[in-house]
C-alpha cells in the first residue's frame, strides 16, 4: 500500500512544509506519491520531483485548483485516494482546510498535527495546546493525517521522481476565490520563521514594538506578541503566539517583557532555544528559558540590537 502526500505550494514554488511532510511519510514506510494540484503549477511539480523518497509526482493542473479551495481539492484527493493506505498533508492552513473533508468522505477519523510516527498506524499528537501528548492508534483502513512540520526534519532534495499528469477536473461549484491579501512584510511569517522575537505587556505600548522590529530586521526574524500585549491593544492579534494564537517552534525565540503565562508557553515551548529578557527575576518565563537576562528591556533591547 502506498502513501499519498499532498504538496503545499503557491503554483510557482513548493512550500518548505512539504519536505517535512515527506519525511514523516518516509517514517511510515511505503511508496510515496506526491500530488501537486494547482494552476500553472509546473514549476512546483518540477521541484516536487526532486524530493528524495518520492517515487511519483502526480500533477493536476486545472483552474479549479488555482487557489486550492477545500471543496475542489478534497474531491480531487478522493478521486485519487483508491489504493493508498495513508494520505498526508502539512498541518498548515491549507492542509487543515481540505483534509478533514477528505477524511469525512472516506468515513475515517483524521489524525491532526502529528509530531511523531511510532508505526504505520500509531502516531503522537499534542492535545490541550501541547500540555499533553497523546499516542493514538487508528483502526481505519485509510489513515488521513496532517503533519506538524516543525516536528520533522526536511527531506533531502536529490531525488528524481517520474511525473504523471492527472486529468481529473473536480469542481464542486459552490465556492469561488475572491481575493487574497498577503502580508507585505520583508520579515518571515511567524509560523515559518527560524527566529522570533516577541513582546508582552512589559513593552508598555504599541510604538515600543519598534525596538523589537529593529532587532528582528538584524536577525531576519518575525515579530510576535503575547496575549497580554494583544489584549492591551499594542499589536493586532495575528501576531499572537500562544494557546489561542499561533503555535511556533523556531530555532530561537526571544521573549521580551513576557511573564510566561501558561497560555503563552503553550505556543512556543517547543522552540529550540528560548531567551527571556525580563526585569522580574521571578517571572515564570525564566523556568523555560535557556538563557535569561534580568534587565530593563528598554535598555537591554537597544543594546542587543547594536551588538548584533
Amino acid at each position, binding site marked *: 500500500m502506498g502513501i499519498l502526500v499532498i504538496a503545499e505550494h503557491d503554483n510557482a514554488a513548493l512550500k518548505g512544509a512539504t519536505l517535512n511532510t515527506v519525511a514523516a511519510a518516509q517514517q511510515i514506510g511505503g511508496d510515496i506519491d506526491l500530488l501537486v494540484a494547482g494552476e500553472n503549477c509546473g514549476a512546483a511539480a518540477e521541484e516536487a520531483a526532486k524530493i528524495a523518497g518520492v517515487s511519483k509526482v502526480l500533477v493536476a493542473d486545472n483552474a479549479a485548483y488555482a487557489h486550492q479551495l477545500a471543496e475542489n481539492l478534497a474531491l480531487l484527493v478522493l478521486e485519487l485516494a483508491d489504493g493508498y493506505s495513508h494520505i498526508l498533508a502539512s498541518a498548515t492552513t491549507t492542509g487543515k482546510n481540505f483534509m478533514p473533508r477528505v477524511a469525512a468522505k472516506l468515513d475515517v477519523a483524521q489524525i491532526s498535527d502529528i509530531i511523531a510516527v511510532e508505526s504505520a498506524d500509531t502516531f503522537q499528537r499534542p492535545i*490541550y495546546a501541547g500540555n*499533553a501528548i497523546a499516542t*493514538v492508534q487508528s483502526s481505519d483502513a485509510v489513515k488521513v493525517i496532517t503533519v506538524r512540520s516543525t516536528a520533522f526534519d526536511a527531506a533531502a532534495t536529490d531525488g528524481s521522481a517520474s511525473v504523471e499528469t492527472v486529468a481529473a477536473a473536480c469542481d464542486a461549484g459552490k465556492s469561488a476565490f475572491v481575493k487574497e491579501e498577503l502580508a507585505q512584510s520583508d520579515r518571515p511569517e511567524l509560523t515559518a520563521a527560524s527566529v522570533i522575537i516577541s513582546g508582552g505587556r512589559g513593552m508598555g505600548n504599541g510604538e515600543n514594538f519598534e525596538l523589537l522590529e529593529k532587532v528582528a530586521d538584524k536577525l531576519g526574524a518575525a515579530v510576535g506578541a503575547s496575549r497580554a500585549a494583544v489584549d492591551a491593544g499594542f499589536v493586532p*492579534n495575528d501576531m499572537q503566539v500562544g494557546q489561542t494564537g499561533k503555535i511556533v517552534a523556531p530555532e530561537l525565540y526571544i521573549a521580551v517583557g513576557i511573564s510566561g503565562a501558561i497560555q503563552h508557553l503553550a505556543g512556543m515551548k517547543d522552540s529550540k532555544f528560548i531567551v527571556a529578557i525580563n526585569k522580574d527575576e521571578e517571572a515564570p518565563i525564566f523556568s523555560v528559558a535557556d538563557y*535569561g537576562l534580568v534587565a530593563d528591556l528598554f535598555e537591554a533591547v537597544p543594546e542587543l540590537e547594536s551588538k548584533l
Partner: protein
Amino acid sequence: MKVLVSVKRVIDYNVKVRVKSDQSGVDLANVKMAMNPFCEIAVEEAVRLKEAGVAEEIVVVSIGPKSCQEQIRTALALGADRGIQIETDEDLESLAVAKLLAKVVEEEQPGLVILGKQSIDSDNNQTGQMLGALTEMPQGTFASEVAVADGKVAVTREIDGGLQTVSLDLPAIVTTDLRLNEPRYASLPNIMKAKRKPLDTKTPADYGVETAARLKVLKVEPPAERQAGIIVGSVDELVEKLKNEAKVI
C-alpha cells in the same frame, strides 16, 4: 435565515492541565469548565447577524453529558433562541460529532452553520470541515470576516501569510478564528431569561448515528520538560552564548 451554532464544553483555557498518572488521559475531575473560546466567537457572530437583520433564528447545539447544558444556557443568554443537547457520556471524535451535526442540519435546514475553528482540548480542527463534506456545503474556515448578501456569504479567512476571501453559496459552513469578533458578556437579566428558553434533549440513537471511536488512545503523557537554563549577566554575554554556544545567530 436560520443560523445553527455548535458549542463545546471544554476545560477553561486558564487551567493548567494535569495528565493522570496512569497515562489514561487528562484529569478533568473538579476542574473549571467553560465554553470553548472559538465557540464563544461563533455565538457572538450569530448574534451579530441577528442584530443586523440577516438571521431570524439562532439554534445552538452541544453534544456531551448533561453538564453541557450550562454552555447551551450561556449561548442562550448571549442571544441564541433555542438549544439542542445531544446527550452522550462518551468523548466523541470529530467524525461522530460531524455526523450528528449533519443530522441536525438535515432537520433544521439552517442557511448558515457557524462553528469554532478548533476546540482547545482535542485541538483537532476538523469538525466544521467534516460537516461541510457530509452535508455537501461549501466552507469558510478560520473566518475573520463574514458578510452575507444575495444568497452568498463572503468569508475572509486567515491563511498562512495573510488573508483570503472566498465567496460561498448558501447554505454554508463558517468556522471562526480569533479576529472575527470580541464576544460579549451575558448580562444577569439575560441569564435569567435564558433559563426559560426552550432546550431539547436528544441522544445519538435518536439520529441513528453510530459513534464508536476509530482512534484508540494508547496513552497520554506530559510533554518533555525543558532543561533549566542559565541566567546571563549582560547583553554581551547573551550575544556571545547565542553565537558560540547555541549557534543560532
